[in-house]
């Protein structure tokens, strides 16, 4: 459709074919018994046509410019994504990092078990000694038990990092797919998240954050005070 600039019907010449056609149709409508004055309808149509044509041109221009800018942005983003080689990140770097961390957990667990096993043997021997010596050994063994609990804490921290890597892997996977799909998934996710309140199970899961970072969390004394507040 070709956009024509709006104009006043009355300004057109007597021999203008458009004016003649319009007048013929309006007369036909009038002959059929219109409830409204045809001249009013003609004025309204002309008015609407003039408004719509003018706005569409401006909107179109702005829209084209926006789309063009967006296309350039997407092209640039695609180029940058290609440069960082997301396929390598997904297939090599992330799995390697995850494996390394899991091996750390496994190695520290094995080492801790070996230490515990050895210390348990020492503790058994201590039972055969006189009370003074036995007490000294038992105290030392207790200190070793306490120190060995590091494996549990570091294990939990590393597990958090592994989960983060898995999340990054998912994001990289999304980047490798078409951007449109990613947007649709995000939109669905937002829709899911906003639909209804969180269940009790979700609330409980939200409380599982693992060991707190330095400065976060509260001390044992604070917890004791908090508990006392319930009594």
């Amino acid at each position, binding site marked *: 459709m070709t956009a024509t600039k709006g104009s006043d019907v009355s300004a057109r010449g007597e021999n203008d074919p458009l004016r003649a056609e319009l007048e013929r149709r309006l007369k036909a409508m009038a002959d059929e018994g219109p409830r409204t004055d045809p001249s009013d309808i003609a004025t309204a149509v002309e008015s609407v046509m003039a408004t719509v044509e003018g706005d569409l041109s401006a909107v179109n221009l702005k829209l084209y410019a926006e789309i063009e800018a967006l296309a350039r942005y997407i092209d640039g983003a695609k180029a940058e994504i290609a440069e960082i080689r997301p396929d390598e990140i997904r297939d090599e770097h992330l799995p390697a990092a995850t494996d390394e961390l899991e091996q750390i957990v496994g190695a520290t667990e094995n080492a801790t078990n070996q230490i515990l096993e050895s210390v348990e043997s020492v503790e058994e021997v201590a039972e055969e000694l006189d009370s003074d010596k036995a007490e000294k050994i038992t105290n030392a063994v207790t200190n070793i*038990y306490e120190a060995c609990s590091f494996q*549990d804490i570091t294990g939990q921290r590393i597990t958090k990092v592994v989960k983060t890597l898995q999340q990054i892997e998912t994001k990289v996977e999304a980047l490798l797919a078409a951007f449109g799909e990613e947007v649709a998934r995000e939109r669905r996710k937002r829709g899911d998240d906003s639909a209804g309140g969180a269940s009790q199970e979700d609330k409980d899961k939200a*409380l599982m954050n693992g060991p707190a970072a330095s400065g976060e969390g509260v001390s044992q004394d604070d917890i004791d005070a908090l508990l006392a507040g319930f009594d």
Partner: protein
Amino acid sequence: MSVDKNMNILVVDDYKTMLRIVRNLLKQLGFNNVDEATDGSTALQKLRDKKYGLVISDWNMEPMSGLQLLKEVRADSRLSDVPFIMVTAESKSENVVAAKEAGVTNYIIKPFNAETLKQKLTAVLGNFD
């Protein structure tokens, strides 16, 4: 009333080293009847199969967490009176409040030392020296 050191104690943690450490510390304190479970659902089954005088549980476990185990225990009329100590790295106030609201008896933050464990056991069970 004296503490029965022959009571059965169930320790729940998904880290076997932690189970071993707690078991050894309990042994040093004179508690020798210690059973172990590596998640909440296994622990719940053990609690229903055998009488326990105390549960010492980690929080962060799959598939059933320590908090969920606590709720299940408190909801079961045969288990609801069993003392339940949460031993966990979850150290935020909201965690303590949630555990308390679910009926936890006491709460220990990891890493902990033997003295803290002894203090909490005394608070829950009474003096056992």
